[in-house]
């Protein structure tokens, strides 16, 4: 019996791996993903690079120094023209807007009468930046009246960033949760895509056996359950092969990158002592540098081994659950067009996992929602992987949660596979009409 299962797995695996589309996918997908990332980065850059020009007509004696061009706003000063003329020229030059600061009275009065003219509703970040400029000058003026000198003011205004640490005393970093969840999310997303793609393969393969009418020939030699299991495992191995190829080639690329970049990093942060006189000027940079290094360290400190092992565990279990449902669907219908109504309810929890993951795990990887969804078997393969880059134990996922999540997944797998097998067993011999949900439930009792 075992050798028959082996034969089926081998056939399904070879049928998948030899398929031309598999080979093309394996080579093409990484290129596509890299291409996508480059495209997104490029588009984001274009978006970021848009510089809005705001013309400033300042008739007052205040606010002369505030308007320093930033990364996305640059200022053009207009002089000695009327407001109407300024509006006309701003519009004709295609500038983003006109900031009018009228003359008259106190700084408070001037500020109150200042006005921004734009073509459409102004962008929030633009108004925000302008308001900040006013706010700062007004604050300085108000404090000045209370006897605060400008030196004292700039002392007061010094930016402040909170020092972040874990209980163990490791310095923690802003945004590192997001970065970690994002990395885990990448794995979770990969699982979702693979469940959908490889589940679809299983389903199509079942439909193919039905439509080519070979199914009865085969199940007169092996049990339907063996065939289903063999098909799911064979396809799953093909998927793992594909992943392994990607991970190995990615690690090779990464190692090459580290080898090349490693020399640079060494030169920048290494032991070569910097000349004393530049130390003061460099302090700003070296603190930024060390922060970058800390981020890099955090990313390297992500338990990659654990993550990759868990990825395979969750991938295999999640895939087994979903693909047995896909197999049952394939058995229930005669052709692919009939599958739609059954597929939607399967994809729902996957999507839910992704969205809940991105919204709750990002903000709080150990919050109640994140924990619940990382335990619930239909979403845990995705959500748990988003939490895992934080590690196991203190500060990360408690070990019991990981074990409970995997156990629940295994129990669910056994339950769902036995239900799916019943539908599969009946469905593969049914031809003709598309069954309703009611009929599927009836099949469970045959």
């Amino acid at each position: 019996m075992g050798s028959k299962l082996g034969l089926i797995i081998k056939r399904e695996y070879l049928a998948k791996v030899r398929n031309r589309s598999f080979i093309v996918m394996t080579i093409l997908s990484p290129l596509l993903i890299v291409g996508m990332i480059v495209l997104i980065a490029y588009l984001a850059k274009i978006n970021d690079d848009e510089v809005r020009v705001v013309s400033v007509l300042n008739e007052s004696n205040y606010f002369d120094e505030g308007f320093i061009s930033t990364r996305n706003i640059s200022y053009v000063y207009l002089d000695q023209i009327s407001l109407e003329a300024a509006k006309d020229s701003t519009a004709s030059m295609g500038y983003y807007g006109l900031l009018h600061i009228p003359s008259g009275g106190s700084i408070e009065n001037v500020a109150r009468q200042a006005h921004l003219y734009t073509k459409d509703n102004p962008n929030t970040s633009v108004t925000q930046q302008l308001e900040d400029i006013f706010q700062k000058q007004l604050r300085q003026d108000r404090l000045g009246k209370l006897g605060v000198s400008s030196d004292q003011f700039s002392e007061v205004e010094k930016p402040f960033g909170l020092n972040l640490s874990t209980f163990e005393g490791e310095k923690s970093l802003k945004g590192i949760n997001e970065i970690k969840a994002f990395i885990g999310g990448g794995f979770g997303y990969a699982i979702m895509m693979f469940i959908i793609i490889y589940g679809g393969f299983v389903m199509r393969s079942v439909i193919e056996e039905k439509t080519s009418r070979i199914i009865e020939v085969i199940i007169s030699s092996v049990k339907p359950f063996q065939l289903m299991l063999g098909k799911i495992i064979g396809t799953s191995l093909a998927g793992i092969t594909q992943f392994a190829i990607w991970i190995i080639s990615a690690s090779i690329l990464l190692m090459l990158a580290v080898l090349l970049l490693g020399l640079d990093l060494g030169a920048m942060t290494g032991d070569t002592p910097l000349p004393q006189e530049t130390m003061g000027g460099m302090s700003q940079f070296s603190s930024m540098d060390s922060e970058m290094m800390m981020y890099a360290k955090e990313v390297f400190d992500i338990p990659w081994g654990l993550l990759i092992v868990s990825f395979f565990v969750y991938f295999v279990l999640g895939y087994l659950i979903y693909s047995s449902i896909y197999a049952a669907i394939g058995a229930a219908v005669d052709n692919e067009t009939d599958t739609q109504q059954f597929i939607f309810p399967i994809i729902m929890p996957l999507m839910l996992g992704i969205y809940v993951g991105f919204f709750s795990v990002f903000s709080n990887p150990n919050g109640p929602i994140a924990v619940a969804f990382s335990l619930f078997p239909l979403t845990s393969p995705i959500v748990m992987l988003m939490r895992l880059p934080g590690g196991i134990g203190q500060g990360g996922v408690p070990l019991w949660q990981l074990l409970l999540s995997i156990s629940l997944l295994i129990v669910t797998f056994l339950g769902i596979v036995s239900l799916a097998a019943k539908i599969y067993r009946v469905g593969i011999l049914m031809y003709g009409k598309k069954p309703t949900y009611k009929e599927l439930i009836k099949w469970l009792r045959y």
Partner: protein
Amino acid sequence: MDHILVAKNVSKSYGNHKALSNISLEIPENCIYGLLGPNGAGKTSFIRIINQITHQDAGEIFFNGTPLAPDHIALIGYLPEERGLYKSMKVGEQALYLAQLKGLSKSEAKKRLKYWFDRLDIGDWWNKKIQELSKGMAQKVQFIVTVLHEPKLLIFDEPFSGFDPINANIIKDEIIELKKKGASIIFSTHRMESVEELCEYIALIHKSEKILDGKLSDIKKAYKNNIFNVGLQIQQDGEALIRTLGEKFNIISSNIDLLEKQLDFKVQLPSSHTSEILAELSKVANVNRFEETIPSASDIFIQTVNSKDNGK
């Protein structure tokens, strides 16, 4: 007599639909057995139970004297009504795969496949894909796969559907050959005339019940009704002749061909004794045909179903 397969009170239902009710059959070893009945009578359900694709709700099945068990699968060859092969897989690879699923070792399967491929003249198809073959060619491959593991019991569900007449004959000869070598064969079909001449035993299945079974020749004997087809070469007026004969015998129908001077009629005799009518006929004309009509399986089927329905 030994039986390859014995079914005792086998029942099976799907939900509210009764597929088999209390079917009992005895299939003798080394014979050709016809499982006959219209579509939906329950034949395929019964065969699927033998192949352990589904299981009976009640009743017992014995294979070669022992209760049907999973390892009997290797002793059964099954050509289902709904049959096909993987379209994009190569013929040889596919046949090897299916043979190995039946428990043959790879080398043994290869050896036997080579023998059969040569025998059926399809040796050069080994590396072709099924989708490149015609339907009839694919059926040959299918047949080989069914018989390759030399099963003791061969089950053919609607065996000749999809075969062209030439290939159907080749397959028919192969099946007879297999029987000679000792295999027991079950034909299941609704086209009763297609297998009648081959079957030694039959069972008639109707609406999930067995209505008749036994040795075909015995059944035919039991169902014959002493109707004879007679042909006479006539010189004189055929009309008058048939009238005089009609006074003595129960003539069912008649037909006169003046051009050929031929009178054909059907007559039912009170018993199977023919000496009286033959003596009578030879006095008046030259007899060129005289044969007993033997009911076909489908005649018997219709007759049994009707009498059963009337009996209710």
